[in-house]
């Protein structure tokens, strides 16, 4: 496996995702002789995982079973150990498209944080692109390097431990795109500009507060960035449910005539709606929004250097 290339079978040293069912999963590092405890029992790596196909069902000691999935940046985002607040796939997807990333792109990122976005960026720019990521927190920088090595993508990424606002990205005139997720992005706009290629490129800044966005936009304008655009993207997830609503008793329900009248007013061709008169309910399928959803992650400000 690798985060940038699919493999068929699970090998020693791989990172795999154990899927327990219904949004519940966790990553494991596959190693000979190691065991992993789940609520369905023990998984023995040597016999249960290594050599098996990704996507297989693995039976655990208690008779329960789990699926073993191939790692992807998206699954990693959902399961990675948090060292900071992270960016989720919804924001990541629009960032990737609006920064016009593709194989071969050179990207600068700061800060690295927990590496959620980093993995997605690396996946997109591989095999010929490169990610230069800057993290001022030494421990986090070190941890990120370790993860990239483990995930077999270290050749596609350079982690630098310095303050991007003071020292920049450590590269100049080579980037196609720059991404900033730092508390004071306006202090790094100048560095971002010099990191971008002379013929131009795209920039994105992620900030939770509108005051940060205002200062960033002003800084971008001063640096001559054009096409400055701020947007916000929200994900709505729906649960698929079969709902049955009770039909009110208007005093007619006992009369057969009126009930058939009701039936005919709801043609059975409407597949999603079926009436069960014996129980006095009508059933239908619905996509029900979750009780609680993410209402705000951050504003994304994009601009072009040309």
């Amino acid at each position, binding site marked *: 496996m690798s985060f940038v290339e699919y493999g068929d079978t699970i090998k020693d040293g791989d990172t795999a995702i154990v899927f327990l069912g219904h949004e519940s999963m966790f990553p494991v590092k596959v190693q000979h002789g190691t065991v992993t405890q789940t609520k369905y029992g023990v998984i023995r790596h040597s016999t249960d995982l290594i050599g098996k196909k990704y996507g297989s069902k693995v039976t655990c000691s208690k008779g329960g079973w789990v699926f073993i999935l191939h790692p992807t940046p998206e699954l990693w985002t959902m399961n990675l150990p948090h060292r900071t607040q992270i960016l989720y796939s*919804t924001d990541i997807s629009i960032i990737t*498209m609006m920064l016009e990333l593709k*194989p071969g792109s050179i990207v600068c990122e700061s800060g690295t944080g927990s590496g959620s976005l980093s993995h997605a960026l690396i996946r997109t720019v591989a095999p010929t692109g490169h990610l230069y990521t800057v993290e001022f927190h030494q421990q986090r920088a070190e941890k990120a390097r370790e993860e990239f090595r483990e995930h077999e993508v270290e050749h596609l990424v350079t982690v630098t431990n310095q303050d991007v606002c003071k020292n920049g990205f450590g590269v100049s005139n080579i980037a196609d795109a720059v991404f900033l997720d730092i508390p004071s992005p306006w202090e790094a706009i100048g560095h971002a500009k010099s990191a971008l290629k002379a013929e131009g490129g795209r920039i994105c800044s992620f900030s939770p507060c509108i005051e940060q966005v205002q200062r960033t936009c002003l800084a971008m304008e001063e640096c*001559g960035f054009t096409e400055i655009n701020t*947007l916000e993207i929200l994900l709505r*997830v729906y649960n698929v449910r079969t709902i049955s609503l009770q039909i009110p008793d208007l005093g007619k329900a006992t009369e057969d005539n009126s009930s058939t009248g009701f039936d005919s007013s709801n043609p059975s061709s409407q597949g999603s709606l079926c009436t069960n008169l014996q129980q006095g309910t009508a059933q239908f399928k619905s996509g029900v929004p979750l009780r609680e959803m993410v209402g705000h992650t951050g504003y994304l400000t994009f601009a072009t250097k040309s």
Partner: protein
Amino acid sequence: RKIIFEKQWFYLDNAIGHVYGTTFEVTSGGSLQPKKEVEEATTETKGAGTDNRNIVDDGKSQKLTHDDIKALKDKGIKGQEIVQQLIENSTTFRDKTEFAQDKYIKKKKKKYEALITIVKPSTRILATMYHAREPGKINHLRYDSLAQMLTLGNVHAGSKMLVMETCAGLVLGAVMERMGGYGTIIQMYPGGGPLRAATSCFGFPKHFFDTLHEFPLSKVESLLSGTFSTEVLPSEPEGSTLVEEESNGLSDEKQTSLQETEEEPTTEASMEVSQAEEQETMDLSTEDVEFKESKEKGMKENVQEKQRKQWERRKKLIETAALLREKNSDGLIIASKFHPTPLLLALLEFVAPSRPFVVYCQYKEPLLECYTKLRERGGVVNLKLSETWLRNYQVLPDRSHPKLTMSGGGGYLLSGITVVLDKGRADSTHSEALKMEEPAAKRCRVQDLHC
């Protein structure tokens, strides 16, 4: 080549040799290159009111008449100067607040200073453009939904992707961009041939198309049941495919010219493409002349040419069928005008386990059904029905707020990950496989009935 865009017409000749992102001003008939930064016509009218309590709408605040303005325009005076004149002749301008003045100038500038920026084509530009200009052609797929699809589908270099779309080739183009010419794409198409009008706007290098395969949707059933063979392919539909593709080519050309007329950032690549197309047609016509010169030989050659093309097409089809038969695709992306359930259930067969799939639909209800059917079938985990909301903001000093209008809907996505089918379920599919060994004709009839 004359091009019409936003009620202006111009020639692109002058734009060649400039970097992408250069802004041009339109003069009578040609494109002119003005300075990048127009030194702001400094609003030296620093006098400004604080509120609008004394501003009355009497319709007489502008002292220039309609005819005056037309006269200015006819004289070919620079737009910038017209705006200046309009400001000077507005009696209420000085009483307006600073922000209202700003807004007034911006509005007039938009109307009188015709500036055109030429940018490089990308998924970002094309998806935004198609969504704004021709949402019907792409099933109202908003660009943020497309972005989601590419991410959820883990589209990246080196994959073997299956794409079924009726979005004018926009989704295909987006996938091709993300794969950068590495890996394989198999496009499943309905009817006589794949539509790639939007794909051609990307200006992909030729080698990107070497990795692109296509397979007719109508042959999927026979491929799954094992009755597929190219002999089944009658020559008649082959011919129609040819015709279709030719007409596709035509519509391509129409499409690009249409885009050039409407598209905000006129893409140079689409221009290049149309130039290339012109060249092609030129070549064709010279060939035609040659044909006429030696009619007899030409006729024979023509037939041979047709046969050769048919043979090549058949060869490609066999190759693609072989690729599909491996049933090890790395992902499936569906965005079409068709009902997604039968497409998904059939095409998932070609996808390897532990790979992502994404289905787009403009409406939520078909995806609800799809969700239920997939649950019944099994072999998938992490099913998710979702939608994204996109909100744009105006960010200006002391005037930041969400934009007044936002898009009502960008469609819905159903995504998930394939896994190895259950043993028990595998048995049921096995019995299905047995059923599939029944005479093909009968099976076909049954399928027809289902349709």
